[in-house]
């Protein structure tokens, strides 16, 4: 059970380690100590089953949303909140998107360091800027201060890519992404799940037969 470092001539081993350490011409005392401490890890009790806590091995029992710095400005979040609520407003069954924290979720998403998210940041920032420019051009007010009718006038032009005019294609792509993100943000909350009637995630004694009511509805 001997490590093969014992078989490697010591001088060669030191050369290898020095090369690995880069600029260090010889092992200094601190490095020697660290090496000794590492060797000690080889004995003693087995390590416990425990996540390391990084992205490859996160703590799944105590999750928390992404901890990266948020990038949208307070001004951008005001416009975004207004747009999220245009997409998912309050109704008799559930609250609006902004009431359950959807803008903060979208900020988490576009602030994430991955390439896809960074591309989303550009599209959503640009889209929010476009939205205010368009609002100012048409109604001389920023989007957040438009009436419901005024908001609809703009959103009807950009709500469906295949129908959007050539000059609205980019805005339609922006709208589509915000709509998808708003839906994810909204329907993953307790209020959103309740709205849809999702009642899983609850322990049951057995898997029930489809009810007579559902059987009738599906024509079975």
């Amino acid at each position, binding site marked *: 059970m001997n490590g093969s470092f014992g078989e490697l001539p010591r001088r060669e081993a030191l050369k290898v380690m020095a090369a690995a350490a880069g600029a260090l011409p010889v092992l200094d005392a601190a490095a020697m100590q660290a090496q000794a401490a590492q060797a000690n890890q080889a004995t003693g009790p087995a390590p416990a089953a425990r996540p390391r806590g990084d992205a490859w091995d996160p703590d799944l029992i105590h999750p928390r949303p992404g901890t990266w710095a948020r990038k949208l400005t307070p001004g951008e979040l005001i416009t975004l909140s207004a747009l999220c609520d245009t997409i998912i407003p309050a109704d008799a069954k559930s609250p609006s998107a902004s009431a359950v924290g959807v803008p903060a979720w979208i900020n988490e998403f576009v602030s994430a360091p991955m390439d896809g998210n960074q591309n989303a940041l550009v599209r959503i920032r640009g889209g929010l800027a476009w939205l205010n420019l368009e609002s100012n051009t048409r109604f001389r007010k920023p989007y957040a201060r438009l009436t419901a009718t005024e908001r609809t006038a703009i959103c009807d032009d950009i709500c469906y890519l295949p129908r959007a005019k050539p000059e609205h294609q980019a805005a339609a792509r922006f709208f589509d992404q915000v709509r998808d993100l708003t839906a994810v943000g909204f329907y993953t909350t307790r209020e959103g799940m309740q709205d849809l009637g999702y009642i899983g*995630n609850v322990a049951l004694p057995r898997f029930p037969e489809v009810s007579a009511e559902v059987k009738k509805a*599906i024509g079975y």
Partner: protein
Amino acid sequence: MFLREPQAGTAYDVIVVGSGAGGGMAAYQLAVAGLKVLVLEAGRRYDPVTETPMFQLPKDAPLRGAGTREKPFGFYDATVDGGWEVPGEPYTQAPGAAGTANEFRWWRARMLGGRTNHWGRISLRMGPYDFKPKTRDGLGADWPMTYEDVAPYYDRTELLVGIYGSTEGLENTPDSSPGVLQPPPAPRPSELVTMKACEPLGIPVIPAHRAVLTVRQNGAALARQIHPDNALARRVLAASMNGRAACFWATECGRGCSIRANFQTTTVLLPPAMATGNCHLVADAMVRAVSVDRAGRATGVHYIDKRTRTDRHATAKVVVLAASACETARILLNSKSSQFPQGVSNGSGLVGKYLMDTVGAGLQGQIPALENLPPYHYDGAGGIHMYMPWWLYKDQLAGKLGFARGYHVEFGGGKGMPGPGIFGGLENFTGGAYGRKYKEEARRYYGSFVFFDGRGEMIPNEDSYCALDPDVIDQWGIPVLRFHWKWSPHETGQALHMVKTFTQIVEAMGGKVVGTPPTDGARAIARGGQIIHEVGTCRMGDDPRTSVLNQWGQSWEVKNLFVADGASFVSNADKNPTLSILALAWRTSDYIVEQLGRGEL
């Protein structure tokens, strides 16, 4: 017992490399037989009982739990240090293959229990035809044993693991012996609607077989049945079984299971193996090579203690490799010496060859009959309850299909837990709805989508293999694998047939296909490795010139060296491989016990 390093002074009978399906089963069977077993696992120690996020919600996770590079199946997926990438452990593609249809994507999990913590739990037996494919159609190769040779091991594995399903008497879709299977769960609404549409199309829809307990196991009775002559095995198995709960139908199996209702080696095989006192387990131990003596016998393995980055050697009378198909091939190829210049057990030159994955293609449909259904409480439970076994044996025999071998269909739908991606693409059904209309449309369409995934047999070919890359090493200093991959017209033809069939089913359900189905099989088929059923690389056979192992998983060249994972597969029937890996690892273990007892090893 978990150890930081092998116990000094213990003379191990067997080293088992890997703790997934093959390694977990081998460790259990060898330990209950009274052998001293050392299991080396490349990943970290992992405990599903304390680490499984059973009820955690997407809203509390980063990015609402979406899949990322580090967690490709989502934040809450059980996999640790795995996916199609492993940090610090690259692999390479044949020149020009990266990003093309000739790319192979290698999925790994670096954790105790390997990928058994995450898998879909679909547990289908290979049938009589599947063991003799070449005899039937002239393609590929036959296995060196028959279905009848393996059937008793399937029965016992199903009893041990706990598999739900039914017996249907269908062609090449074997029935289990009476009393072996657990009762299947009732079908969901989407499954009922699909069954009804498939009946006139002549497509059978029957209960799936999955490794999930629907009722608690009777530990004492099952242990007596499985181990009639072994008191130690009966004691540890009964205790382990009695500690498993039946499924409570609330969560996704891919997260793992803290109540031990589904099968993962970390809840089903390793606990009783450890309870024997005969099994020592060292995690973070990355095996790089098999060591051999002058007589050409295996003496143990070289491994890297990942926590200290030091090279170690462990010894035993017998070595069992179960590191996963490609990792096992990599270890053998890397075990070079003057006696074995091409790597241990590779005199035939076939180690790494005949790599196979499963043929995959899928389609989604939107089904009006499933719109606006009342909520039901079982929406949280993941995993299929019904499936379609391959049904066109006669048409194929009559030459009507234009491709060889079959596929089964995994399908489903329903009001699953809202997560990342929910309602993506809904604008195509609603003409871009937003506002109050959007909320109404969301209520209407939620749960009305059904997916179909074909899972078909790939025929082994000369162009699909892995070999050591002479230019690249991983962070442990081990040469990495380079993959070569090619689908044949049999596979692409099958993928196109899948897509056409699913379109037919969706239309028969009165539904609408989501998106535009591909009209070219090469576009419909998933990439090599994407279905994560890679097998082959060290195939069994009756002839040392054309195979690496005999029917017991024993190396032709090094008689105390065995392979107990998917590497030994001769063909890759459409039946998902895990159940067969488990049954064959048991068969190999029995052979090792018998041969050791006779002094043959």
